[in-house]
């Protein structure tokens, strides 16, 4: 594995209409509350209140759910639904990133709210015993992207792993000459709910290395090099689900032939 720590200048912002609709995008920091709505396994509710507006939101649809002991950065858009299975309007798509700020652990009873029965997310990997069909050609240079929580390099179950697995299936089918893995960190400070947040710049390299390690285990003989980019900008990759902050915190895997 070759590591190129090229701290390139920020990549060009690629803003599409969807990502640019900032007005719809909620972004705030709050302590999460767990509502014990019981519609079976993995059915609990997560509620947060925007400290600026006092508006409570249901953020249970985040691929990485909160820990009731820690504050979260909430990013998402109001869902186009009047249903409130957890008792608050729904943010969906939504992300909650665990921060280090401690919170008072609080749980509400169900209070008649049904919660949501767990539905396996569309982004789930298939077992080795049942691999998906190889992607149809023709094959040429192509990039794959996976996304991260704020300031973390953990590849999240049924989100990041799925995106990595998609890349792996394509790479296996096309057998490129080498892989270039570029980690991005949203290292430019921003103020959210009165707090300054920024990703540690080293997160860019850390993300690249985590993904490169996984790729090297998938393709032990493949040449893989890593790059790091700080000051990551927003893009409109569909797997960031239109959440600008999510699109910044990413790794791109480029297959070269």
């Amino acid at each position: 594995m070759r590591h190129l720590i090229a701290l390139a200048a920020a990549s060009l912002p690629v803003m599409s209409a969807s990502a640019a609709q900032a007005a719809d995008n909620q972004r705030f920091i709050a302590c999460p509350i767990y509502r014990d709505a019981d519609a079976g396994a993995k059915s609990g509710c997560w509620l947060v209140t925007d400290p600026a507006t006092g508006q409570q939101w249901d953020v249970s649809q985040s691929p990485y759910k909160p820990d009731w002991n820690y504050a979260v950065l909430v990013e998402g858009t109001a869902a186009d639904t009047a249903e409130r299975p957890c008792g608050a309007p729904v943010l969906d798509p939504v992300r909650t990133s665990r921060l280090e700020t401690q919170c008072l652990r609080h749980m509400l009873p169900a209070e008649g709210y049904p919660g949501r029965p767990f539905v396996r997310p569309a982004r789930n990997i298939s077992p080795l015993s049942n691999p998906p069909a190889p992607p149809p050609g023709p094959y040429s240079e192509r990039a794959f992207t996976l996304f991260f929580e704020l300031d973390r390099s953990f590849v999240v179950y049924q989100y990041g792993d799925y995106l990595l697995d998609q890349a792996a299936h394509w790479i296996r089918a096309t057998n490129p000459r080498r892989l270039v893995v570029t980690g991005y960190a949203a290292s430019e400070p921003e103020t959210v709910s009165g707090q300054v947040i920024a990703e540690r710049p080293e997160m860019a390299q850390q993300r690249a290395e985590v993904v490169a390690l996984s790729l090297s285990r998938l393709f032990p003989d493949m040449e893989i090099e890593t790059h790091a980019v700080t000051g990551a900008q927003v893009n409109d990759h569909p797997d960031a689900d239109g959440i600008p902050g999510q699109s910044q915190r990413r790794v791109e895997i480029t297959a070269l032939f």
Partner: protein
Amino acid sequence: MKSGSSLPAPRKGKRVLLLAAGLLCGALGFSGLAGAEGPADDRWWGPGEDRTWPEVLDYPNANGILRTLITGGPVQTKGHPFFEPMGPNGRACISCHQPADAMSLAVETIQERWRVTNGTDPIFAAYDGSNCPVLPQGEAASHSMLLEHGLFRIERPWPITEYEGRAVTPDFTIEVVRDPHGCNSGVQYGPENGRISVYRRPRPLANLKYLLAVGFAYDPKQGLTLPRDPDTGEYLSGNLMSDNRAVNLRLQMEDAASTHGEMIDRLSPAAIQAITAFNLSVFTAQQVGAHGTALDSLGATGGPATLRDSEAGALGSIGVPVFSEFAVWETIAPEEAARLSPEQLEWRRSVARGARVFRDKTFLITDSAGINSPMGFGNPVRNSCVFCHNMTRMGNDVAPGQVDLGTTTLPFADPLPDFPLFRITCTGDPHPHYGRVILTYDPGFALTSGRCADVGKITLQSLRGLSARAPYFANGSAKDLEGVVDYYERRYNIGYTAQERQDLINLMSAL
């Protein structure tokens, strides 16, 4: 174990010889231990003996009969490296992996060996069959961890320097708070001297194809692709050993030979091959449950034959539900029911309900690293026993099963005054649930990975053959199956009804 007199009366060395399969499969179930009585120590397979290990081997236990099957024909123990002493302490693999005990070693058996051999059985070897080699070896008190809890001493190097083939520097320090046996302090022992001692149960050496099976290419708990086997290049299941220190069977047996066996020479390639082949051929499970109930009767598929004949590694939630072997007993036809005693009928129904409780009764799982962090399920997350014990037929974890259930770590662990206690201080990021300072009896997986986030994680065992191998959990802290359920009640505040609790216990007794 302060004196030998508190040991329970010897178990009858009754072995059920070749219970006819037809008898067990019938709708009538099994109506008594009809087998011949062997010599008193027939149950015990000693190292270096000359015996024939048959394809079907049955031994009674308090809840019925455990059956062990081997594929590939009977095995002659004489000269076989699994059965021959490895080194000067006279132990073989068989010493600690006994067929009557589901290829583990029940504490009851250990006590019986002490009594029968006056403490001279090789299992009591000073190196790890005593609390610490520095203690006077003739006294039962020096072997109390083994005699009372069924625990062998496991010595790990500290600090570790390598993990998964890469150099590591641990992000935590270890101090010894309490050292009741002397193996974590003094001039030779303890983390200060590069060695840390913990005490653990032998894990069942059977049904291994399930523990080696790989369901998915990724370890969701680590957020990484699975590492590859250094020998074969295949993905590693990550499901061996409490702390996953040995990643494949070769490394495991080399570890066992040089520690438990105090073997000076390395195992020969031929020995490695013979031991591996034998290990992979052994399947064990309870075959007969309470009230003489054949566990494969009336359409149920309990017992080891199903384990032997099934595909390994399936995730119950997307395939055959975990422990649905007994689902047919939910609806026993009236004419079948009429042929059973009321106790037999009710017990079958209870086992079937127990499997439902295991899968369907949900509770809030909290502060259990590996589940509540960093995977993204949230803390808490509502789920059931099957969330972690998710492999079809086995109940181990399809993904590498390193989870902190709290069994070894405060505040969740039961008080264990005769265990060494360590203070872990995280030097990098604090632990996501415990914070910076952690008190633990066994850091578990962290002794292998070097990460404070892994303190207290213990690889899930399989749940088969439980009736034959009490006590439970890696540190033996649950004396019996009741104790297991009680621990989960304390840990997660589940609120089982008396009926659900009994159903769950009956289910576990039938595995």
